[in-house]
């Protein structure tokens, strides 16, 4: 078995066990309604996390995604409500802006040799600030296109809904998995995460790939912003604050190493579902105060990480121990 598969399998196993345990306590969790909600409610997070997976596999990080979601929502809302553009046109404009934004960050990371953490932090300030310069209010979007989309869903037996945005997220995951694991671009991404010098000597176009990675991340964050605006029919400059940390958390819980080079897009999917499960569990429980909610989320995060390490360590024991320390 491939060594790098192990954290992924560990995550899947943990998810299944955790879900089973939660269902045992609250049988209501095993309904199509809850499952449908898992997809719909986490769609924007999932889409963001796909982009984040690429960034992290390449050894980088993108702190700007939450702000890009907020910015996109505001931009789209203003374009539709104030300028009367068709949503699809507004989407295209937003995606183009996001692509430029991501490209600028990628260029800065590569040519200025500033760590991604800092470049994307500045990007976060810029996007968040840009959104509040456009408007400070939350801008409602009243367009029939929006109502059409939100009425697009499959009804599942048992009252659940398989919504358009949920399906879109799945499509993005499939797309992400194919790109990561089945294209040359994908192999370049892993190459950068493995060792940038080696990658460059092996003929990987490092500059181009770096720029493409951050473009991809920003564009997926933008798509997530569009989904968020569909989800709420509005744009709000403070939307999705802190989503970057959720996305990073999902990616890492999904078995991708923050140091780069290893990871699976599908793992991220499981990571997103795990986070969703934790939140749903806390809601079903309904007795946790604000502070206990934070503490419990922290504890669960800790347990997942430790569990993953244990599973990883147990299965890696036989290997040539290359990591000394």
């Amino acid at each position, binding site marked *: 078995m491939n060594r790098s598969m192990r954290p992924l399998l560990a995550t899947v196993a943990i998810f299944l066990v955790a879900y089973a345990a939660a269902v045992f306590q609250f049988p209501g969790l095993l309904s199509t309604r809850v499952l449908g909600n898992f997809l719909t409610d986490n769609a924007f997070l999932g889409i963001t996390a796909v982009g984040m997976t690429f960034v992290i596999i390449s050894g980088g990080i993108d702190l700007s995604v939450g702000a890009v979601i907020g910015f996109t929502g505001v931009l789209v809302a203003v374009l539709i409500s104030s300028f009367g553009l068709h949503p699809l046109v507004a989407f295209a404009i937003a995606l183009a802006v996001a692509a430029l934004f991501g490209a600028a960050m990628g260029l800065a990371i590569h040519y200025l040799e500033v760590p991604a953490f800092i470049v994307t932090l500045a990007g976060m300030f810029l996007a968040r600030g840009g959104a509040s310069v456009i408007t400070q209010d939350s801008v409602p979007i009243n367009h029939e296109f929006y109502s059409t989309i939100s009425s697009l869903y499959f009804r599942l037996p048992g009252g659940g809904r398989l919504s358009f945005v949920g399906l879109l997220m799945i499509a993005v995951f499939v797309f992400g998995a194919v790109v990561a694991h089945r*294209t040359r671009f994908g192999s370049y991404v892993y190459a950068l995460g*493995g060792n940038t010098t080696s990658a460059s000597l092996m003929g990987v176009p490092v500059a181009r790939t770096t720029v493409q990675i951050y473009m991809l991340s920003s564009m997926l964050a933008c798509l997530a912003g569009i989904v968020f605006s569909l989800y709420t029919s509005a744009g709000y400059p403070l939307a999705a604050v802190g989503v970057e940390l959720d996305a990073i958390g999902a990616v890492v819980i999904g078995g991708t190493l923050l140091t780069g080079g290893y990871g699976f897009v599908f793992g991220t999917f499981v990571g997103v579902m795990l986070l969703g499960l934790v939140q749903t569990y806390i809601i079903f429980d309904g007795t946790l105060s604000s502070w206990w909610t934070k503490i419990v989320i922290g504890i669960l995060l800790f347990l997942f990480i430790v569990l993953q390490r244990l599973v990883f360590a147990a299965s890696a024991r036989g290997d*040539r121990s290359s990591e000394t320390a």
Partner: protein
Amino acid sequence: MAETAFRMEARGVSKIFGTHRALDKVDFGLLAGEVHALLGENGAGKSTLIKILTGAYQPDGGEVLVDGEPVHLDSPLHAQSFGIGTVYQEVNLLPNRSVAENLFLGHQPTRFGLVDRKRMNRDARVLLKRYGLEIDPSSELGSHSVAVQQIVAIARAVQLSGKVLILDEPTASLDRDEVQRLFEVVASLKRDGLAIVFITHFLDQVFALADRVTILRNGKLVDTRRLSELTRTDLVRKMLGKDIAFSGSTSLEAQRPVTDVLLEFKGYGRKRSVRPFTLTIHKGEVIGVAGLLGSGRTEMARVMFGIDPSDEGSVALNGKPISIRAATDAIAHGFGFCPEDRKADGIFGDLSVRENIVIALQGKLGWFRALNRDEQLDLAGQFGESMDIRAASLDMPVKLLSGGNQQKVILARWLATDPAFLILDEPTRGIDVGAHAEIVRTINRLRDDGMALVVISSEIDEVVAYSSRVVVMRDREMVAELRGEDISPAVIVQAIATHGEPTPEETAA
């Protein structure tokens, strides 16, 4: 140079790092169907020239021509498009990806725009077979030893090279069989008309393979000649600019009197790493460790040094049992260890040469007895000089030194701790003839000073040259301990090669 039909040519290239002229107006031409050896001391500028020829560096002067046309190679990818395949000095592959992907990265076979993994793995298997390597192409490259990675790097370069193949010290971590296979491959590529550059510090290999040689010294071109016009001594003189006395492969002068026992490993071993071994080491003794790649020599060293602590057996120092659970324990007992993978486990790339040299001693002194800057400079200067480390300044980052000089820095680091027992894992890998002789001399000197050493090496001649005893590893097990008369290349090779049937020593024991 009268020939004009160069496949690839560098005309008057220069490269300046800061104030250091790594290359100074060097001309270098490659003919189709030749093996061209590029020789020079550590730091002579060989790797730098290669990097310019392959677009990894941009020259500060001069030009590069392919088939007579001046080209501007702006990246290794660009060079690849001209059919130039390269193995760089340090294995530059991706340990996190599969073997097959490392072979084909950037050129993966695709179907409908998607990478066709099945075919890629199939092709990889076929390709590697040529080098006698039967490993799972979908396995992670990092899970294989340096040697395997080296072979993969070679296979990748060969497969990318339509016109020119450049090999920068490809044989440094290969054993005889593998070197032989590589030579066969090179010979056949030569017949196919490729121009091949070959960098090595092994003169035997130069004479076995090369048609012409180019010699660099201190970044300047010394000479380009047909090999047949040169003798071994000529070569060395041109490289060093002076004569050196060859110590030759004379075995130990005489049986020296057995001195005090320093260390005794009894049934020492570690599960899944190395089978229990028993070894007594005396003061003033060099124990050579021979074995095939992957035979567990490195593992043995790691267990001795406590990096992978033993889970069986005992060890005694000067007759008193000690326990070695971590590297710090070993160091506290006066051990030292130069690891085999200098990039990953040895050097601190961003730290200065000075800091790299003092760090082990400082580690021994602890957190609060800091050596001040002057003491550090003294120490670094002293050991830098005795090891003949070529660095523009002791304060430059060690990563800017040539590979051989980095190796000397690590050796100096341990000598500075004044160890009683030193383990050297492949200490001469990638080191030029001058330095090689230097290190062998150092080993001998240390032994005469009463230090005990364990030296792992794939160079059997070298092992013979300095060992008081030789232990042979096979399949992670110590299978033989040779001494006296038995320390000869023939016996060692036989002990390594013997499969199944016990060696004479074992039956005797």
